[in-house]
């Protein structure tokens, strides 16, 4: 169960972040210079790979109890952030993530900025836009993959899930050459928020010395309970008088654009 959950959580989180990074790279490449944008992608991926390669073995060397306390706590804080935003979006209190609109804004900004080259990079703006996009979106995935992987003592599986997600998004991006606006990002963020919160809670409590009733099987209760609780909060927020975020939103407030 834990390995499957590890794969799903990392895969979904990575899909979401890769879609966001793809939008930025597409705007930089389409609006400015593809070569510089792709150099930015390679540089961003390179920095992330070095960070994961350096921190991965270091994390697995930490004693499991201490690791679960610190990482469980961080994962719980991180998961609650994701879940809070997802509930606010689904409840109509926060704008739904709209890749098409984000792409258009980034494209307009890219076209309005004067061109300037540095070294082998013909267009510095495209390079930095892509580099920052890949690095910042990738950091969240690296954090999730490393913490899940280290706790499960299976960083290769986490890396496989992340790699598979990046591959899927890259192939889809090359195929349609447009932002992946139809990916149900908001629902996926909701699911990832639930899983990060459940695992953060589970590992954090274990790290602090608590014993869960049923040991690992407690996760089978925690994950659906958190999901139902979060959906209940969405319903309360919607009933509190907020108009739906978009016409045709699903229960988790997904915009099917």
């Amino acid at each position, binding site marked *: 169960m834990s390995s499957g959950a590890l794969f799903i959580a990392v895969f979904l989180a990575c899909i979401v972040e890769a879609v966001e990074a793809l939008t930025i790279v597409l705007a930089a490449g389409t609006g400015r210079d593809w070569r510089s944008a792709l150099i930015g992608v390679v540089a961003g991926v390179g920095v992330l790979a070095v960070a994961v390669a350096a921190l991965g073995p270091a994390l697995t060397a930490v004693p499991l109890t201490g690791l679960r306390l610190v990482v469980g*706590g961080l994962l719980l*804080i991180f998961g*609650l952030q994701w879940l809070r935003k997802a*509930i606010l979006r689904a409840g109509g209190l*926060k704008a739904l993530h709209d890749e098409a609109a984000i792409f258009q804004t980034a494209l307009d900004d890219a076209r309005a900025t004067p061109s300037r080259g540095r070294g082998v990079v013909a267009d510095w703006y495209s390079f930095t836009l892509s580099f920052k996009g890949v690095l910042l979106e990738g950091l969240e995935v690296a954090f999730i993959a490393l913490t899940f992987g280290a706790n499960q003592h299976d960083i290769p599986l986490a890396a496989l899930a992340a790699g598979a997600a990046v591959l899927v998004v890259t192939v889809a991006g090359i195929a349609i050459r447009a932002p992946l606006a139809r990916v149900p990002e908001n629902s996926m963020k909701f699911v990832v928020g639930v899983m990060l919160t459940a695992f953060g*809670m589970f590992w954090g*409590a274990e790290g*602090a010395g*608590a014993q869960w009733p049923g040991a690992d099987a407690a996760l089978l209760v925690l994950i659906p*309970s958190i999901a139902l609780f979060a959906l209940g909060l969405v319903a309360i927020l919607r009933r509190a008088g907020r108009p739906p975020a978009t016409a045709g939103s699903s229960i988790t407030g997904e915009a099917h654009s």
Partner: protein
Amino acid sequence: MTAKITAFLKFWYDFIVGDDWRIAVAVIAALALTEVVSSTSLPAWWILPAAVALLLPLSLRRAHRRRRPSGLGGPGSR
């Protein structure tokens, strides 16, 4: 130089702590309480679920009060 250090620290604060610092503080307090209760003969597993059940609605209520309906499409949509 100071501006760069401030920006660096702000990035990590936003990355880890996020929009509501009270969540981070409450999670740390709940973990500390779990550690203390675990050292006794009492069960401690329920403390984090109880903390989340309290924290999340309170944080959402604060956000609900802060935002106007026209907040849709506003900043911080990430």
